[in-house]
């Protein structure tokens, strides 16, 4: 751990304190640890809470996925679920009982075997804490309904058929009950301890955890699942460096101090993707962007106003803002979600039609102002707001662009009376379950941030309720197709685009594999390595 080469500026730094500039090694490309390499990844988002049952977002998930394992794992594009801690599983005919058979050799970092009891404990913990991942299963799974049948078999008995049960399994990580129980304080299921510590079985173990600046992981040499790139090439460690300024991240990559970066402004990406020594990764994402409109009050309660807005909006600008790295939505569903259909007649910019719609509304000549709210500090929604303002000028509709902190926005949006006229909403599906996306337009979505339209449509409700328990795939897909068309017709949102997910890496980085079901900037570190002398 003391064999790191000293880079150019460290040499100068060292020169300030002691010797001279003789140790300078001008072109460092990566951190070394003896013969092995450490990969450095820079992003802008901290990892405040590591507990896998309490929180997930892209940066948190990336670390969780590295230090923990789940029964199954999402890989590849289009996404597949592959066995991981479970070597196989089966379900009964109505998909209410799921049985998982564990591999025999999995063990936690401290040497404890990973058995069925650990799996049972972890799921119970997630449900009892009622945070983070709990929403996925809490309605169908009681903590008592999880049984460890023997050392290597776990059974889940659901309260209703749930065809999508498996799609959530990769998101529930398994913690070591013994370690957690040893650190319980005030009946907290070890929550305080797991916030900054780990009790996992994953390919990496935690070495240094500074939530706001650096997270340093060490590879587990004898990882039970092995290393796909081979023992020779595997990394010695992984460093996630939190660098909030995009310009600073860019500089790190250019200077070779970071091997890979994410959260890159579109214009930077354009410039760097062809730079020497740098390789881009640019993939179609799953995060939908929409401008959700309040369907219950103000001018946007009028469907013709909503349709007028949707036909006045400058969709090309959305693509231009992302320098072409985005695709317009062809349905309320992202393409990678099963059941997606291309809905005919998705609104595109057509000012004549927009004026016609407006003329049919109660506000024929415009002359009103609408509030557009976006999350404070986010750059793209701000620019989209400016586009919206510009797009609606021909209709004589003014736009008041307001940035608010996320909690304030959600708090306002939870009630129809206070929900803003228009809100920018990004939704990232965490699984391939179409019910989660379709559920956005169900009455039960009211109160969630994606339910800020406060739409109530009995037809949509009935179809969504029917589809989530329908075990016949063809029938289910038919229902989802109906829902998509109906939702487009009701226009609770201006359906926007799916922005690409992008990374830039040094050209010695190997083993990167895209999977749309990871969250925005997240990468899977396990198969990666650095190919350089």
């Amino acid at each position: 751990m003391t064999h790191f080469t000293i880079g150019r500026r460290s040499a100068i730094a060292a020169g300030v304190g002691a010797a001279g500039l003789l140790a300078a090694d001008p072109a460092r490309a990566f951190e070394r640890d003896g013969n092995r390499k450490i990969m450095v990844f820079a992003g802008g988002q901290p990892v405040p809470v590591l507990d896998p049952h309490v929180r997930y977002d892209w940066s948190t998930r990336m670390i969780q996925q590295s230090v923990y394992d789940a029964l199954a794992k999402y890989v590849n594009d289009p996404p597949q679920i592959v066995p991981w801690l479970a070597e196989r599983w089966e379900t009964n005919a109505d998909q209410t009982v799921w049985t998982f058979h564990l591999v025999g050799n999995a063990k936690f970092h401290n040497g404890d075997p990973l058995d069925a009891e650990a799996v049972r404990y972890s799921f119970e913990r997630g449900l009892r804490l009622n945070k983070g991942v709990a929403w996925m299963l809490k309605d169908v799974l009681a903590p008592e309904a999880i049984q460890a049948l023997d050392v290597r078999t776990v059974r889940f008995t659901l309260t209703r058929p749930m065809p999508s049960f498996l799609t959530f399994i990769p998101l529930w990580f398994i913690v070591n009950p013994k370690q957690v129980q040893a650190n319980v304080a005030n009946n907290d299921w070890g929550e305080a301890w797991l916030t900054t510590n780990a009790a996992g079985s994953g390919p990496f173990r935690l070495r240094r955890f500074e939530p706001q600046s650096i997270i340093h992981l060490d590879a587990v040499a004898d990882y039970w699942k092995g290393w796909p790139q081979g023992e020779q090439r595997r990394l010695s460690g992984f460093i996630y460096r939190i660098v909030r300024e995009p310009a600073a991240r860019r500089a790190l990559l250019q200077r070779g101090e970071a091997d890979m970066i994410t959260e890159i402004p579109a214009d930077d990406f354009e410039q760097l993707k062809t730079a020497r020594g740098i390789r881009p990764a640019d993939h179609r994402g799953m995060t939908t962007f929409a401008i959700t409109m309040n369907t219950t009050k103000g001018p946007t309660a009028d469907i013709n106003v909503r349709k007028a807005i949707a036909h006045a909006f400058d969709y090309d600008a959305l693509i231009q803002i992302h320098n072409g790295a985005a695709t317009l939505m062809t349905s309320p569903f992202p393409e990678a979600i099963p059941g997606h259909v291309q809905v005919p007649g998705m609104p595109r910019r057509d000012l004549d039609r927009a004026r016609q719609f407006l003329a049919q509304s109660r506000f024929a000549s415009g002359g009103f102002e609408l509030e557009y709210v976006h999350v404070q500090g986010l750059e793209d929604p701000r620019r989209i707001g400016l586009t919206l303002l510009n797009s609606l000028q021909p209709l004589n509709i003014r736009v008041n662009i307001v940035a608010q902190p996320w909690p304030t926005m959600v708090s306002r949006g939870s009630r129809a009376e206070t929900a803003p006229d228009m809100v920018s909403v990004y939704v990232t599906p965490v699984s391939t379950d179409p019910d989660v996306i379709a559920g956005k337009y169900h009455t039960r979505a009211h109160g969630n941030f994606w339910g800020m339209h406060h739409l109530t449509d009995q037809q949509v409700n009935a179809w969504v309720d029917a589809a989530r328990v329908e075990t016949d795939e063809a029938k289910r897909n038919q229902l989802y197709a109906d829902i998509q068309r109906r939702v487009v017709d009701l226009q609770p949102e201006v359906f926007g685009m799916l922005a690409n997910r992008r990374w830039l890496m040094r050209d010695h980085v190997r083993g990167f594999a895209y999977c749309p079901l990871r969250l925005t900037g997240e990468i899977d570190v396990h198969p990666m390595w650095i190919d350089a002398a």
Partner: protein
Amino acid sequence: MSATRPSFAQRHAATLRQLRFYAWSFGRSPSSMLGLAIVALFFALAAFGPWIVPYPLDATGAMNLGNRLKPPSAAHWFGTDEMGNDLYSRVILATRTSLWVGLTIVGAATVVGVPLGIAAGYFGGAVRAAIMRVTDVFLSVPGIVLALAIVAALGPGILNGIIALAIVWWPGYVRLVEAKALALRNEPFVEAARAVGASHARILAVHILPNCTSPIIVKASMDMGLAMLAAASLGFIGLGAKPPAPEWGAMISVARTYMPNWWWYAVFPGFAIYLTVLGFNLFGDGLRDILDPKSSRG
């Protein structure tokens, strides 16, 4: 009749002489004159900005994505921003926002702080204790921290920024005026006025307040710049003006993402802030040298 009445110049000979002296000593200092020039330019741009900039619509939501992030050129002196808007126009038009911000914050702080300060200094005792304790509480936290908390709670926007900064700005005036009033209340002419039965209101208005004006003017002129700087800082953290309204701090906040390749985007608004604050500081410094020479240290 007009012959019997002394002319304006005669009646105010002493005052005019004093003013002429002020002007002369102010003019003797090159840095003060530089300050005056910058401040004058600033006011002129704020007043006439919309008529002299080439693209006034660029501050009200125009966009031209095909023309974005273009370097400075004959058509766009300061280049263009990420929406294709002319930065020269936006930087100039933002002077009005800044002026408004500076005037409102300093105005509000003076209106609240000066009467409280006078009351505290003149009446003393429990009144003074109460006012000064509250003032001290506010002064014990750097304004930017408290303002940050206030704006974070109220939400971004110029008006909220002004409210937040005005809330943290008034105590400085209380401190300033209180000390002055405290010194004045035992002056012979004030005691004399009290002895002949003048009311508190009259003493305050005629004897105390006029004698406090010099330091207030000096502080206000220095604070104009500092208030604009503070507002720009809030804008930088992301708590500034709502788009598309042009505001320097908010422009830098967006522009830093585009550094260093699109350097002009951050450089010009930042330079505008620097120049403005510098102007008001130099101007205030010059005023202090002539109006309030004793306090010109520290």
